[in-house]
């Protein structure tokens, strides 16, 4: 997976490394700001109220 990705990134090594870092950061941001906030209330970790 990662090998395939690396081989398909264009440009010399420096450019590829930069692109890879940007991609990783984009994925982390997507997780942090979109996916985790959406999934978090559905998980059984942090429910603090009693049913009324």
């Amino acid at each position, binding site marked *: 997976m990662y090998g395939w990705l690396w081989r398909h990134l264009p440009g010399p090594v420096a450019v590829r490394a930069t692109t890879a870092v940007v991609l990783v950061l984009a994925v982390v941001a997507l*997780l*942090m700001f979109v996916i985790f906030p959406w999934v978090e209330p559905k998980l059984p970790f*942090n429910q603090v*109220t*009693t049913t009324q």
Partner: protein
Amino acid sequence: MTTLDTGGPPPTALDEPGGQPPPPPGRGDRIRAVVRGIGEVLITAGLVVLLFVVYEVYVTDWVSAGKQRDATQALDNQWKKEDQAPAAPEQQRVERFDGLDEGTGFAKMHIPAFGADYAFTIIEGTTERSLEIGPGHYKGTAYPGEPGNFAVAGHRVGKGAPFNDVDLLDSCDAIVVETRFSWFVYRVLPKKDEVSGWATGKGTDPRCQGVAPLGGPYTGLVGQEIVNPSQGSVIAPIPGHPDDAPSVGERATLMTLTTCHPRFSDRQRLIVHAVMVKQWAKDPTKPGETPPELKETN
């Protein structure tokens, strides 16, 4: 592992772009690629889970800290504005909580046992969105100082974790609720193992003045209990007796905190009950004055 790591097309094919085309991959190469792909997916999934822990424990804290700061700022501004343009004469300095919108702050809670800087603005409502800002007031329960049960829920992990250490609250520890015109001092009720020897034991502590096991319909009510999430009766006017509807005159003035238990789990709820022992009216001529209970920081 080394055989797996060198899988895939032979590196020579990549290093020499103008060279011979790579030989067609053999069966072993394909299996190696699949196994390596599965391994990479699993490692990635593990990293995502780790990242989720970071999110839950730290990132939500930062986000909530900003929201809590905004809510506190809004409440301070509102109080200041009302101070500058008093709508009512002196004798009408009474609290008004009607018509509060979901998500607005209306009071501050201080727990001096958690440090002099422990202060959170209490938010109306207990939706996810409100609880992200700060401790949330269960709609329909009493407001600060009112007879009945002033019930507040708060997160224990992440999201500012206002109730992180609520399990450490001892009997007689003060929960000071600041409103527009007053300071209401609630104190945690005796715990289960302290009830029987209260009068000669812990009850002799000067801090415990006004705190004693409650009688009548409140018999059996203790300072801390752990219940199932379905037991909504803990926030009833008489906790544990949802069907009793005592008249206002018969009601004790209680405060109840709810949070998740055990930490990082929603299997149960940790409940703390406190009773109001004192009310200080804010002196409009001394704006910065705080009640002595706020100094009980040990």
